[in-house]
């Protein structure tokens, strides 16, 4: 009972799963002002344990065993009313992943902050207003009087997350739980938010539990670490010890995956191959339709860019969301028509290509494994469809070709008659790759092919892409915001910001010695172990 926070043997189950616990014998100890990181892939139960602590578990969840001691209270003996009044928001605060949706869109920032303060402290509006302003400045927001009158949608993602932090800290909690607070933010903003959290932790003297899927980030923030997988704690201990002397296989794989991705590779010798793609003065403008109260908006998604891709190389286009990289990818694929400029693939304008001709030339792999496959088609049909459409007279050979390709991407034959919903994310992404390569195209455009996947799966998919490139000699254009993925796979990179190319060059040298301010910022935001 001397601990600040101790969770013992916490197990949580959901009905309908034959009592398979989604969280199994979870234990945790945290001292006052301490810091703890919980790492795990999606479904590992890392968030669930904290939701149980803050009593935010989904309704159908059943806590089947366990006890929680916090500040010398046995929380299981405290009824909900008491808990809401005296603990949540007051002693324990939580910040969440999605700053876009975590603030109420119909109330001003000021109202939300003030309400939270007034609710736990019997104070007047004036004082609450004053306190809110103070909190906003402590999370380093400016123009705070104006800010108070603004609505969440008027702020950027980083600003919203700051407001969330201000709201969480407004009642001086002794424990802050941060659930993936930076995952949804741009790389450059991530760093700022993490620094802010660390700074405020010291300033307010509170304990911090930091939940993340990113081992790098967690190792940066917390002294202790818990590694979780499928509801079980795999390993726990001091961060340094766990990282350097992992005891369990899973932790080892996790670390090696990260390290693999980050291995410093030798500078590639550029083979002087032919230009396979030439992009000239490419521009794309989006016109957002005028809505009530707002006039038409014009966005220069891609602004007059030029670049070339050589046969057999892997080129990465890197940039944050909104930089125009996906627009470029879609235009390369002919899925969007450029407003100006042209794209030549093997000296032919991609928009003037016959669709079948184009299909045999260039194929895409998309980000989201859940929407990339038509849920009504079987895997076999999905992979065979490019052949059916482009080479209609294959008949018997068709099945063999499909099976061969499935084998190539590491899919079991048994999946032939399955439906997408029966597959895991990684398997779906393999199907998507199989569909893309079955026509043996010259170019593969991978738009964030791994960013929705867990780290271990991510590594496997990247490995697959690498192998395919070697076996088939395919040219790959990789779109990503993740420096480590880029480093792992590509020979050349192209940094984009606001629709323009900021920097381009050889991967290793560019990343090691970035010339432009923006590239530097990007690089500094990467956490390494």
């Amino acid at each position, binding site marked *: 009972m001397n601990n600040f926070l101790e969770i013992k043997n916490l197990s949580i189950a959901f009905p*309908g799963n034959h009592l398979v616990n989604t969280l199994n014998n979870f234990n945790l100890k945290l001292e006052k002002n301490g810091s703890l990181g919980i790492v795990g892939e999606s479904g590992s139960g890392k968030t669930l344990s904290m939701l149980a602590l803050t009593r935010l*578990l989904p309704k159908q969840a059943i*806590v089947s065993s*366990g006890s929680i001691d916090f500040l010398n209270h046995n*929380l299981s003996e405290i009824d909900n009313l008491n808990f809401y009044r005296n603990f949540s928001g007051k002693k324990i605060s939580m910040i969440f992943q999605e700053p876009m949706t975590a603030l109420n869109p119909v109330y001003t920032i000021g109202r939300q902050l003030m309400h939270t303060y007034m609710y736990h402290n019997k104070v007047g509006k004036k004082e609450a207003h004053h306190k809110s302003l103070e909190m906003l400045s402590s999370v380093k927001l400016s123009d705070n009087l104006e800010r108070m009158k603004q609505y969440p949608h008027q702020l950027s993602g980083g600003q919203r997350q700051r407001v969330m932090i201000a709201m969480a800290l407004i009642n001086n909690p002794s424990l802050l739980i941060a659930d993936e607070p930076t995952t949804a933010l741009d790389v450059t903003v991530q760093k700022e938010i993490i620094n802010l959290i660390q700074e405020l932790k010291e300033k307010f003297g509170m304990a911090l539990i930091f939940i993340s899927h990113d081992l790098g980030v967690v190792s940066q923030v917390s002294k202790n670490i818990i590694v979780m997988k499928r509801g079980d704690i795999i390993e726990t201990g001091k961060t340094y010890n766990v990282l350097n002397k992992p005891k369990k296989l899973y932790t080892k794989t996790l670390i090696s995956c990260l390290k693999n991705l980050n291995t410093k590779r030798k500078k590639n010798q550029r083979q002087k191959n032919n230009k396979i793609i030439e992009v000239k003065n490419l521009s794309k403008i989006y016109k957002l339709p005028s809505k009530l109260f707002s006039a038409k908006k014009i966005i220069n998604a891609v602004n007059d860019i030029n670049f070339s891709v050589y046969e057999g190389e892997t080129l990465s286009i890197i940039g944050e969301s909104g930089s125009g990289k996906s627009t470029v990818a879609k235009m390369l694929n002919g899925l969007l028509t450029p407003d100006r400029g042209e794209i030549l693939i093997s000296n032919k304008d991609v928009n003037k290509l016959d669709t079948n001709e184009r*299909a045999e030339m260039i*194929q895409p792999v998309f980000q989201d494994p859940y929407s990339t496959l*038509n849920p009504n088609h079987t895997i076999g049909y999905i992979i065979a469809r490019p052949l059916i459409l482009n080479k209609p007279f294959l008949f018997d050979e068709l099945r063999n070709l499909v099976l061969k390709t499935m084998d190539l991407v590491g899919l079991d034959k048994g999946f032939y008659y399955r439906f997408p919903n*029966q597959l895991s994310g990684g398997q779906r992404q393999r199907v998507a790759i199989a569909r893309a390569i079955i026509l043996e195209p010259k170019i593969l455009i991978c738009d964030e092919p791994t960013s929705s996947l867990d780290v271990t799966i991510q590594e496997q998919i990247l490995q697959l892409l690498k192998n395919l490139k070697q076996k088939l000699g395919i040219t790959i254009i990789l779109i990503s915001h993740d420096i480590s993925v880029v480093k792992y796979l590509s020979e050349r990179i192209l940094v984009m910001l606001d629709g323009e190319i900021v920097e381009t060059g050889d991967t290793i040298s560019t990343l090691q010695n970035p010339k432009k301010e923006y590239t530097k910022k990007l690089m500094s935001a990467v956490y390494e172990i």
Partner: protein
Amino acid sequence: MIFELIAKRLYPQAFSNNLSELEPKHIFLRKSINHLGFKFGLTMLLIIVFLGIFGPYIIGISPYEQDLTKRLLPPIWVEGGNWEHIFGTDGNGRDYLARILYGTRISLTIGFGAAFVGMIIGITLGILAGYFGGWVDQLVNYLLTCQLALPGLLLAMTVVFLIGPSITVVILVIGVLHWTLFLVVSRSATQRIRNLDYVLAANAIGASKYQIIFSDIIPNILNQIIVIFTLEVGIAILSEASLSFLGVGIQPPTPSWGLLIAEGREALFFQPWLIILPGIALFLLVVSINMLGDGLRDITDPNSKIEIQSKVEMPLSNLKKNINSKKN
């Protein structure tokens, strides 16, 4: 229970315990078995359809046979009723049970017919607008606004004036007035799907617009369309009843329920069964169709929270202390 047994017999593989191995239709089956409203609606609808098809043959009385000396006989549960005419007779001495049973066919024909007409119009426009966007979308939107602003009943009356009433005309008129929901749903679904990666992928592998529409879009909006379809069947049945009630729908002596209610309206207080019986029939049919539709919506909604598992198999002893926070 019966549902479960039949389903288990037909699709044993749907009851595998490994949930990740279920095909889409198996998931549908598992979910529907756990949806009480859906089962109830389906059962009731099947019974009503059965009665509509075979009922008139079972009782063996023609709904058109008149006997003016046996007018307005009360039903069996009212004093003076007899077994010869279980639901009594109407103002022309026709057997009311036979007329109500036969009316099922009229309601179903018109309900399904009109909803079908509406569906064809609605999804054609909806897919065109959703897929092509731009001026096509704007044109369709204009049509939609026109249709929504149209005082349907008045127009239906005028049109029936113009052409004269018959079952076909009523089906067409109701169908032409009820396509907006199909349009709105299929358009927004198409808009959503056309930007999904698998449509882009289909585009990239060389599928033509029409192949994409028929192979990628229509099968994936079908779930929502079926839901709307069932709800529209209910609406169409009620519209027919309203039109017939106002005297511009189905022609006598065809026994439409709306017409029966209209005919019994004057005797409301003294022969109340004349309006209550067809009213209940109408109510039951529409309720069963609506429950079926609501159930389908719940079952096919990917975000629905219906359990796939039949029962929560949780020994109570395992429930130690529940510190789960309950909302409020």
